[in-house]
């Protein structure tokens, strides 16, 4: 049974159809990169899977571990094991990183019928994971993403991924706005998460991050559909040639 199955997904935003029949299957242990030009629907896909409000699913469905998740709230999807690293992480004034993550961890444990994690154990775990991402302990006292640089925000997403340890990670342009050092640190974080019992969907505009996180599959999303799927080499070809040739091929194909 696939970990994630997106079937013929049609999604509209404010009356405009963004996804026009998208299919995607992610098996456990796989890393899928989804590439595409701006406005092709990449973020829409990850947002819809996460249950973000504001998207109208007009047909199709999303299955997680073989069951439809379309009726579930975003927090229920999260606790079921789906994690979204946002393209634009949100600032939470007055909520400290440490308390935020502790609340999230306890919510997850409650769903699993487990007791709250003892504070010392939690702090030790959190500080180790933060250190691995190049954060000092002071960062945990700061408000979530408030006053963070772009790179710090993205690394903070990866920290949350590490702490919540979901089954499926949807990484929405985690590489955008990162300098090369920050990109390496964030990629290492994702690679630590990677494993035979995990699935990753890596949404990106650029090929660069795939130098650090090697995908098993690369898909190209253009105008709401996956128009081509292939291996790592497809990403290199896209980098060399851009998206236009593919768009032209698709248009020629559909008019033929």
């Amino acid at each position, binding site marked *: 049974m696939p970990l994630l199955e997106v079937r013929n997904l049609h999604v509209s935003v404010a009356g405009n159809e963004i996804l026009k029949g998208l299919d995607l299957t992610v098996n456990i242990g796989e890393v899928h990169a989804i590439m595409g030009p701006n406005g092709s629907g990449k973020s829409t896909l990850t947002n819809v899977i996460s249950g973000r*409000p504001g998207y109208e699913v007009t047909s199709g469905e999303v299955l997680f571990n073989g069951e439809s998740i379309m009726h579930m709230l975003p*927090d229920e999807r*999260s606790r079921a094991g789906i994690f*979204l690293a946002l393209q634009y992480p949100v600032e939470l004034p*007055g909520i400290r990183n440490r308390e935020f993550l502790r609340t*999230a961890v306890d919510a997850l444990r409650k769903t699993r019928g487990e007791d709250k994690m003892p504070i010392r154990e939690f702090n030790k775990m959190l500080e180790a994971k933060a250190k691995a991402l190049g954060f000092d302990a002071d960062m945990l006292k700061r408000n979530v993403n408030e006053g963070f640089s772009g790179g710090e925000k993205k690394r903070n997403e990866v920290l949350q991924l590490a702490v919540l340890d979901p089954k499926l990670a949807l990484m929405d342009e985690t590489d955008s706005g990162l300098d090369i050092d920050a990109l390496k640190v964030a990629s290492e974080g994702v690679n630590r998460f990677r494993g035979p019992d995990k699935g990753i969907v890596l949404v990106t505009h650029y090929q660069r991050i795939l130098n650090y996180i090697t995908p098993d599959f690369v898909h190209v999303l253009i105008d709401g559909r996956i128009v081509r799927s292939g291996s790592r080499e497809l990403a290199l070809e896209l980098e060399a040639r851009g998206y236009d040739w593919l768009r032209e091929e698709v248009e020629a194909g559909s008019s033929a």
Partner: protein
Amino acid sequence: MANTSTGSDNFSAAFAAVQSRPDAGPDWLRSLRETAMLNFQETGFPVQRKGNEAWKYTDLRALAQTSFAYPETPGSVSPSRLASILPFDDGFARITFVDGRFAAELSTSLDLPGVTISPLSRALGSNGASLRQHFGPGQDRPEDSFTSLNTALFQDGALIEVTGEIDTPLHVVYITSDQPGPIAVFPRTIIIARPMSRVALIESYVSAGDGQSLTDAVTDIVVEDGATVDHYRLLVENPKSYHVGRLNTVLRRDSTFQSLVYETGSHLGRLDAVTLFDDTGSSASLRGLYITSGDQHIDNLITIDHAKPHNTSRLSYKGILDGKSSAVFGGTVFVRKGADKTDSHQQDKNLLLSEEAVVNSKPALEIYADDVKAGHGATAGAVADEALFYMQSRGIDAETAMRLLVQGFASEILDAVAIEPLRLWLEQQALNALPRFEQTISE
């Protein structure tokens, strides 16, 4: 420009009545009232918003068209009613006024060491020439029409002179009664902290009824050399009321002023707060929290005047807006020529719980000195939806997320409230602002 609203006609009649009373006060006050009334009649309510920065986003037409009665006698409020409308049960020394008149039966014993608390009317009755300096226009700012109207028509208010270090807070309570109206009331408060004194004061504006009313309140605070004043101003009048307040603070040498403004009551609430650094070595921390819903409108116009060097100011206001409510934040920090070594920062942040809520936030700096550290910032409002989804995407349910969000947002203002029952009450107020939860999913 003459104002022709029925409102000001009513006030003319009220003014004539005030001036003809035998207890109208000393001659200097009668003369001051005369000037103030003329000024009000000249300018009227500032209904014209075009070209009027101070009132650009606040529409006073409905207020100006309302015919307010000026009550001859205060309405009646029983002690048990008072207990139910006080924001919190504090047990502090309390001086209470109903419809702008002293209510002895609702006040505690005011005989405390280190401080003189009395109705202002009493001091003015025995001439009170030393109080003259606390009235009338500032040196370089023309008096606004609401202050003028208050000066013309006020009957009473709290006069507090602090000489020692006071450990328990004092509470000044202004109640608008439910007598037939709409009525207009004009509380006037004077707080003088003598050198090296220290005091914490709460000034509360509450309604005993649910009818329409106007409160035009003026508070003058002087913090003399080395003194410390913690001032809390709570606006919790009923949702139909109009409230226009003024808070003038003068800081002398090496003084400390901490102000918290909490605004949730009233249909239309406005506060003009002016803090003047009149000497050196002082600091002011001005904080505000406004929580609005329905069709409420709250407007804060804050001015910090660094007239002298070596002073520090911090201004931080936050708003939580729901429904179709709106808020205005105007903060201007003047750093005058020669006011070097000024250190100033101001910010206004808003949390919008509804897409129909609107905020206009305009922090501004006007710097005429050279060696200055100053900054400002405003966020027009992270719409709470984004933060809510973000937290939900980490497995936190919507209700818990919203609670964390509102608590966290308010905590930056409220954590510094040293009076525990007040802080607990304010925290609860913030939580009460939470919307009821019926979240739907996008399917």
